[in-house]
């Protein structure tokens, strides 16, 4: 039921600022056994020069709603009701009523409404130059000849702050970095001077510092052009930084709608509050509270010395030296017993390679890893294949993608039990009992063990992955972006679960992440990596509040702050190297 205030707004007379108004939009998707109501009675208005953030977790229907505004709907879906009214000088058009192939709709798509996708990688063609793609977009919607369209494209690239636009216009997609691609994508969306800009998770695939720049850019362009913007995101921090109004979506309904300040400082719906709580929760260091007090000097369990990984330096057949990339450059650190060490860095910083080298699934070019187990120090870098198997029993990996890391063709019992079968030859009742124990340990119902992974949500799957890692009573767990694929509320739950397990089993964690807040919440010490080098290593609290190095400062200050009253990004420090 709508609260009384809602009916008042929906009946207000038409005001001139509204560019696009969505009224009671419902979307149905036909699945194998059921009809999914992906959006139910969704209503909102986009105003000129204002940003509406549609925020929600995965499966909330935010993306399908946004795409439906341009009538991009999957084959099995349909608009079940409602209106999408686009207002203009020539009167109102109801997009929901337009024919799928009509000229009018094509003119609106990309013409009056521009769209920016999440993946700049896959939404630009790899076989055409950036310029030709934008020129095509320009010419589709305006009557320009090729030369003028090209000039216009260069101008657009200049507006999205791509350096040397005259040269860059003839470059291919692969010559652009992720952030540059997203800029090119924005230029394309702006090609026809749209009145409405829809940005579907425009910065999710980008690093924090790039994200800050892109959000900056979008915001400035929107204000200077007076566009209405619909920004879809799952990140409350981004919302706080750029939104004017916020619509919170949950399972296909807008559960709360209001000005950004009201949403953040006076949330009314229980779901909004939960979402904010889990975001804000990650702003503190939970580890500081759960850390056991130890007086004695910390015992080292794993130590890495001068680890280096060089890719591609091998000499070619003809003797010429190849092109080499130092993925990891001379990294040394120690991991103490019962400690959580975070490794943060942006994409390409070498953090994942470092994690894999500790396990030797990637062979280090040089350097050593030493493991101090019960049987004395163990030189991991010199181990045979058999010895490595024993090491892998004590140092386990939790994967990033909870969907790819579980074999979809095996039951949960087989997945969690697999290491036990392989190592201890467990079977029958004993295996069943141990699997049930492990599932209970990670907060899953043991009765679910006969199910297949596809029956579980992302968070549940990650729990299954953790149960598998715990099966062999390890000493160290390396978690590689273990929470990156999860929604924010689930993220906090998984981190709490890991902390709880750590307290019970006395594990050490190496937590690799690009997400500063996760690392701050979870870790005792943090190592910051940049271009393969370890830039800074120190206590989590110090790294996050008083970083020493210039790079760390810029990284920390680029993280969006989930409070619209204290926007962080706008006065961030920039790092140039």
């Amino acid at each position, binding site marked *: *039921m709508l609260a009384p205030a*809602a009916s008042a707004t929906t009946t207000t007379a038409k005001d001139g600022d509204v560019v696009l108004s969505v009224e009671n939009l419902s979307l149905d998707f036909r699945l194998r056994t059921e009809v999914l109501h992906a959006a139910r009675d969704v209503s909102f208005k986009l105003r000129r020069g204002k940003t509406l953030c549609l925020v929600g977790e995965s499966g909330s229907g935010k993306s399908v709603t946004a795409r439906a505004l341009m009538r991009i709907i999957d084959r099995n879906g349909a608009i079940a009701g409602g209106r999408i009214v686009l207002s203009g000088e020539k009167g109102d058009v109801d997009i929901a009523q337009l024919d799928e192939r009509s000229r009018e709709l094509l003119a609106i798509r990309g013409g009056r409404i521009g769209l920016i996708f999440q993946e700049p990688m896959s939404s630009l063609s790899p076989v055409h130059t950036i310029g030709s793609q934008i020129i095509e977009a320009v010419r589709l919607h305006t009557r320009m000849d090729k030369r003028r369209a090209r000039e216009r494209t260069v101008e657009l690239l200049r507006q999205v702050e791509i350096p040397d636009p005259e040269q860059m216009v003839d470059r291919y997609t692969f010559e652009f970095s992720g952030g540059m691609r997203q800029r090119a994508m924005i230029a394309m969306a702006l090609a026809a001077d749209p009145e409405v800009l829809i940005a579907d998770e425009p910065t999710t695939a980008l690093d924090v510092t790039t994200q800050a720049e892109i959000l900056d850019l979008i915001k400035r362009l929107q204000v200077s052009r007076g566009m209405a913007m619909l920004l879809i995101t799952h990140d409350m921090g981004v919302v706080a930084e750029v939104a004017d109004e916020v619509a919170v979506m949950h399972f296909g309904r807008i559960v709360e709608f209001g000005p950004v300040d009201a949403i953040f400082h006076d949330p009314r719906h229980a779901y909004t509050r939960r979402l904010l709580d889990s975001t804000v929760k990650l702003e503190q260091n939970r580890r500081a509270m759960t850390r056991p007090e130890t007086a004695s000097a910390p015992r080292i369990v794993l130590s890495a010395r001068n680890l280096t990984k060089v890719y591609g330096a091998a000499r070619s057949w003809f003797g010429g030296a190849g092109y080499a990339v130092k993925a990891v450059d001379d990294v040394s650190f120690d991991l103490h017993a019962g400690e959580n060490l975070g490794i943060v860095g942006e994409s390409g910083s070498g953090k994942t390679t470092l994690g894999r080298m500790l396990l030797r699934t990637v062979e280090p070019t040089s350097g050593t890893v030493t493991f101090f187990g019960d049987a004395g120090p163990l030189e991991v870098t010199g181990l045979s294949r058999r010895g490595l198997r024993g090491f892998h029993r004590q140092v386990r990996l939790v994967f990033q993608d909870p969907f790819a890391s579980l074999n979809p063709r095996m039951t949960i019992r087989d997945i969690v039990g697999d290491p036990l079968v392989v190592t201890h030859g467990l079977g029958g009742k004993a295996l069943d009992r141990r699997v049930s124990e492990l599932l209970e340990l990670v907060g899953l119902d043991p009765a679910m063990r006969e199910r297949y992974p596809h029956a579980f949500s992302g968070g549940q799957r990650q729990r299954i992955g953790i149960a598998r890692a715990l099966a062999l009573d390890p000493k160290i767990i390396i978690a590689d972006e273990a929470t990156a694929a999860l929604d924010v509320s689930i993220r906090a739950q998984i981190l709490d679960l890991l902390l709880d397990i750590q307290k019970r089993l006395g594990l050490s964690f190496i937590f690799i992440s690009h997400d500063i807040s996760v690392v701050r919440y979870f870790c005792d010490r943090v190592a910051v990596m940049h271009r393969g080098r370890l830039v800074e290593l120190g206590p989590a609290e110090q790294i996050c509040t008083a970083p020493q190095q210039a790079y760390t400062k810029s990284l920390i200050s680029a993280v969006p702050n989930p409070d619209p009253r204290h926007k962080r990004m706008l006065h961030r420090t920039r790092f140039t190297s």
Partner: protein
Amino acid sequence: MTAHTFIDGAPETGPATTPLKPGTGPGDTAAAGQWRLIWYKFSRNRLALVSGWVILFFCFVGLFAEFLAPSVPDASRPQFTNAPPQQLGLFVTGPDGSSRFQLHVTGYAMQVDPASLRRTYVADPDQVVPVGLFVPGAPYRMWGLFDTNIHLLGPLSPGDTMYLLGTDRLGRDLLTRLVYGTRISMSIGLVGVCISLLLGVVLGAVSGFYGGVVDTVIQRIIEVISSMPTIPLWLGLAAAIPLSWSPLTVYFVITLIVSLFGWTGLAREVRGRFFALRGEDFVTAAKLDGSSERRVIFRHILPSLTSHILAVVTLALPTMIVAETALSFLGIGLKAPIVSWGVLLQEAQNVRTIANAPWQLVWPAGAVVLTVLAYNFLGDGLRDAADPYES
């Protein structure tokens, strides 16, 4: 500025859905393994489903060929050479004008052109040949196990004729020969594909799993083999088969020859899948769990491949059938007395047959086309359903 609005009530716990059929919940696939999910996906493809039934029908016909055929393939009646198909009727009109149920075919009136000595047949509606189910006819040995003479359909009196699809130039029943040909043509594909499958999966898996030098060597072998022109090679190899060998031995050697060149595509497919799967997280996880390479291959990788392999095999079978037909048609494949679709087509390859007895060409060709199409549709359906986990 807009007002702050919100919905009352507790947050919902799941997405809103309406079942298409009442009584089916969304959770019924929770404990469904890959084959059930593949079946769900496959069964939505009507064309593939129908094709599957067509294939099953042909397999059934091939399996029970002796019983289903009205006669035996070598029984010839020289007085009925090139006789046209006879119509099957359900009711006969008696002399008193009353109609009663009697399965029958109408007989022929035959005339011989005195000048050209060519026989022409005219349907004679007065001549009724009563036909029945499970009637005794020509004796045969079922599956080489026991002697019997019961046929599914045949003329009630053994001397009568029933040529539902006509006869060939020696006066042999075409339907009988087509049914017997089904057995050979359907099974030559199976045997050939089994050998291809073994070679393809083993070499493809080795190539894909180990990579490196092993992969390079196997891939070069594949390239050499697939670069050979197949038809001249078949011709040469088939010509090298000693004439003294029995037709059955020749049949197996032909199968072997066809399959020795048919495995390369499958090996490449398997190798590609292995490459893709080798990098999957769950395979890395299995390795870190301590699984040996053999266990990783057999427990984790191959189960993910079986459905794909099945689809590839289904698509490979029709090429085998076509290859057999082509070889027999060229006269270097199967030879009489063995009956296959290719042999039937070879016998029909002259202008006189096409002009005067087109049924000898139409039915075997129709059978080949129908089977190959059905296999292709089935294979396409299986391929689309082979990975039920992709979103």
